[in-house]
């Protein structure tokens, strides 16, 4: 500081001096920890660990819980089934085309067993792809008149792996309330926004779509990257009625959402050649982005498949969890499915026969006193519901169970529809 240039006023210097002293004090003072008081001593930690008691791993199940004791079936589950020692006519399995007992299917499966053994010992990526898988995929694509198909080894996992492969966090899915449990699991795994619309109610869906459109106009940048899907079933398992597909396709083009169709019950049942809901209504199959079905109902095998355009299906080969991380379908089951497809293609009359029989049963069960018939006339799986509920689900279930037992005595096999009460989102009434 040159003494001739010292025009800094005295208070300025004093202020700076005080600031420097303050900084020095802050630098050397002990830091103040906010959570000082919350640190626990070792002894307290040990005490907490000693005290903690977990719940038992599983809550105890009472001895007479309805789903605890299974009915044991001896012998093949075909048209005549032996439940608990009694022989009955089988109205309980999903054996719609009667192919469970077919000799040709069994012979083909046997031939495949003699060639490949039973298991595949690996996922699709690591020497688990057999030529039967490739053949089944191309046959399914040809049958459904789409570009490509992909096979899963478990029916439940098919739609539950397909939905999270496309829809991620931040996307929006519109689902029918009566969607089945595997769809619900797929939705949960995808972490997207789920919006439920009332069962088969197109106005409700349109209202939701309009609301979403308004949202989009408010925030166009976000809307450009948010994908939107509608997930519906062809024939609903829970209510046995059909979705209005032509209106859905209209809504698709109007509001620019993609449609995923789940055809577990309607594949091999509806339509002139058994191609499902799209053939039933005459909708162009390219309009549906993804069709998923399981092969465990009409096609009496095990597993599931998805079909659609290559643009959509190819993505699942790398990102479908149930496809990449799981062993492939045993080749004998794939061979059985191919033979079942052969039968379906050769003989399209069986679908007409099935529909006639469904109508017949529907008419016959219409007037049963005390019971309400739920479903459409051409649905192969119908529900009988109690007309007046007693108010408590448990007693309803017990009444229905005694009904089933009575039918078993009369040599007719029926079954109670099972639901996981705590897990379902919209629990259907007992039937």
């Amino acid at each position, binding site marked *: 500081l040159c003494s001739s240039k010292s025009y800094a006023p005295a208070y300025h210097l004093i202020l700076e001096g005080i600031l420097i002293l303050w900084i020095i004090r802050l630098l050397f003072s002990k830091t103040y920890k906010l959570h000082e008081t919350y640190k*626990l001593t070792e002894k307290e930690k040990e005490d907490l*660990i000693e005290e*903690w008691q*977990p719940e038992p*791993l*599983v809550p105890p*199940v009472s001895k007479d*819980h309805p789903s*605890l004791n*299974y*009915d044991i*079936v001896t*012998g093949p*589950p075909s048209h005549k089934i032996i*439940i608990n020692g009694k022989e009955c006519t*089988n109205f309980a*399995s999903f054996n719609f085309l009667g192919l*469970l007992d077919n000799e040709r299917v*069994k012979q083909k*499966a*046997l031939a495949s*067993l*003699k*060639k*490949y*053994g*039973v*298991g595949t*010992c*690996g996922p*699709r990526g690591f*020497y688990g792809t*057999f030529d039967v898988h490739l053949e089944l995929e191309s046959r399914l694509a040809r049958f459904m008149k789409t570009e490509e198909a992909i096979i899963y080894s*478990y029916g*439940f*996992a098919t739609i539950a792996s397909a939905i999270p492969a*496309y829809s991620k966090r931040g996307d929006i899915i519109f689902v029918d309330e009566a969607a089945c*449990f595997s769809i619900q699991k797929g939705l949960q795994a995808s972490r997207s926004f789920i919006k439920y619309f009332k069962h088969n109610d197109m106005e409700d869906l349109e209202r939701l779509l309009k609301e979403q459109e308004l949202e989009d106009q408010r925030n166009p940048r976000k809307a450009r990257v*948010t*994908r939107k899907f509608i997930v519906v079933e062809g024939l609903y398992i829970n209510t046995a009625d059909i979705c209005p597909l032509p209106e859905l396709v209209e809504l698709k083009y109007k509001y*620019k959402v*993609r449609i995923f169709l789940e055809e577990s019950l309607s594949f091999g049942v509806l339509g002139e050649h058994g191609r499902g809901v799209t053939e039933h209504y005459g909708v162009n199959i390219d309009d549906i982005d993804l069709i998923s079905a*399981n092969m465990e109902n009409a096609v*009496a*095998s*095990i597993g599931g498949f998805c079909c659609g355009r*290559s643009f959509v299906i*190819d*993505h699942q080969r790398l990102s479908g*969890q*149930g496809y990449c*991380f*799981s062993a492939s379908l*045993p080749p*004998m*089951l794939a061979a059985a499915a191919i033979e079942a497809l052969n039968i379906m293609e050769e003989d399209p009359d069986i679908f007409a026969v099935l529909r006639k029989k469904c109508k017949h049963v529907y008419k016959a069960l219409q007037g049963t006193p005390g019971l309400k018939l739920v479903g459409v006339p051409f649905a192969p799986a119908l529900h009988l519901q109690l007309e007046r509920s007693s108010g408590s689900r448990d007693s309803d279930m017990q009444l229905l169970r005694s009904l089933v037992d009575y039918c078993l005595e009369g040599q007719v096999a029926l*079954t*109670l529809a*099972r639901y996981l009460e705590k*897990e379902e989102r919209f629990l259907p009434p007992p039937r």
Partner: protein
Amino acid sequence: TSADYSSCRCQRCYSVRYLRERGMTGHMKRLIAMSAGASMLGRQIVHSDSHHGSLYSRPFIESFEETPMLVAVLTYMGYGILTIFGYLRDFLRHWKIERCHIAREREVQKDFVPLYQDFENFYTRNLYMRIRDNWNRPICSVPGAKMDLMERASHDYNWTFEYTGRVVQDVINLGSYNYLGFAENTGPCADSAAEVTMKYGVGVASTRQETGNLDRHEEMEKLVAKFLGVESAMAFGMGFATNSMNIPALAGKGCLILSDELNHASLVLGARLSGSIIRVFKHNNMQSLEKLLREAIVHGQPRTHRPWKKILIVVEGIYSMEGSIVHLPEVIALKKHYRAYLYLDEAHSIGALGPRGRGVVDYFGLDPCDVDVMMGTFTKSFGAAGGYIAGKRELIEYLRSHSHSAVYATSMSPPVVEQIITSMKCIMGEDGTAIGRERVRQLAENTVYFRKRLREMGFIIYGNNDSPVIPMMLYMPAKIGAFGREMLKRNIGVVVVGFPATPIIESRARFCISAAHTKDMLNRALSVISEVGDLLQLKYSRHRIQPSLARPFDDNVYEDIDD
């Protein structure tokens, strides 16, 4: 005798406590451990008899050699070059200079929100496509020790494949999970499966709780329970689904799941679907697990600090990408001390480990009742498909009524069930022959021999000395494709894995040894691997063991301590 690290007086635990109390970081710990006279060979874990002798009844040797520095640098450079080229090709494709082979959206739907983001598929388009011919190779025979591959050719750089119609015969199969060699189309298993196919048919068309529960299913479940030594068991149609559908039934909101870093996708999905809080501990690191357990019990649930309802530790028997075996005695000691529950996923280890083939519990000689939930799959060692869960009777009763699979999913197919029954009886010796025991012994012998020879040749092998899953490091992206193709040219089928199944620079080839491999096949495979290894310069290991000397168990070798 409990695994109380705070009072154990052995050298290893002493050094861990010493360093932890002084708050050392990982790097400092490594230096101190080195200077304390230990020889650091990357990470080598040796538990010999004198150390925690009450817990480990046999020597447990695992090694994960560190990546050589030069190799790591070159690998990053390789990925960098590929990325630059990837951007260049995308640019060319966008401006239509290069022909685009990717499938495109329909014209009518062009103004919909795009289904895929472009950058999501960058890796797939530019890196995976180049070496795609190493995966999804179709086979047309039994996936046994030797198989027949269908020949594929591609004229547009792997975008589409055509089948030339020729079949490559007798390729030695080092890729299928066929540990005990039950993937066969002749013999007692295949015969009984054939019988059941004719009698019962192939499908079941109903769920377990409705009319899908056949008498064969009940018999199979009793047999599985007897095999594992537990009270009862329940089987499901798919191994992946077993995990993803039953973990939500066991843990829910208010529970804590402690899962290993490298757990399989099905365990991760099951944990996510359950809705509990998930905390991850470092792979096979018992100190990390203990720290998490203590913290969890002491502090309770996040934010509310209420006590947890239950704590579930989820581990696997053999980790298929690392070849490491879980430190089961220590995990069980921890679980008993802190009152947590243990879920053990034995997908790869059931049938493949242990003197009687009963899995990792048998390998360590422990009591199966200590593990609360034992889960496994039938795909790998039994040549069938499906999964099971076994444990106490109350657990299985609860699962029978509350599992998603029992209520909504179709039951297993009868011939598959029959295959499981026959192969399990064979392993247990109940069919009157000694084939099962012979195969278990053969597998153990093959594993030890193969690993020893690979190490002698100078390759870097990860994992435990007894695990039949053998990952061999390749590191560089170009070598992934080259190794797969060169081995196929010489008639050996191997599995190569890269990102995202493994960390980005640690790509590897994975060999799965089978009891069906004869000594000749193994020798042939080894000579070919050595040839290709010399060609591609894969012999990275700096610590070749001399074939003649027997290594003594060195008490001074420390575990890499990285808390």
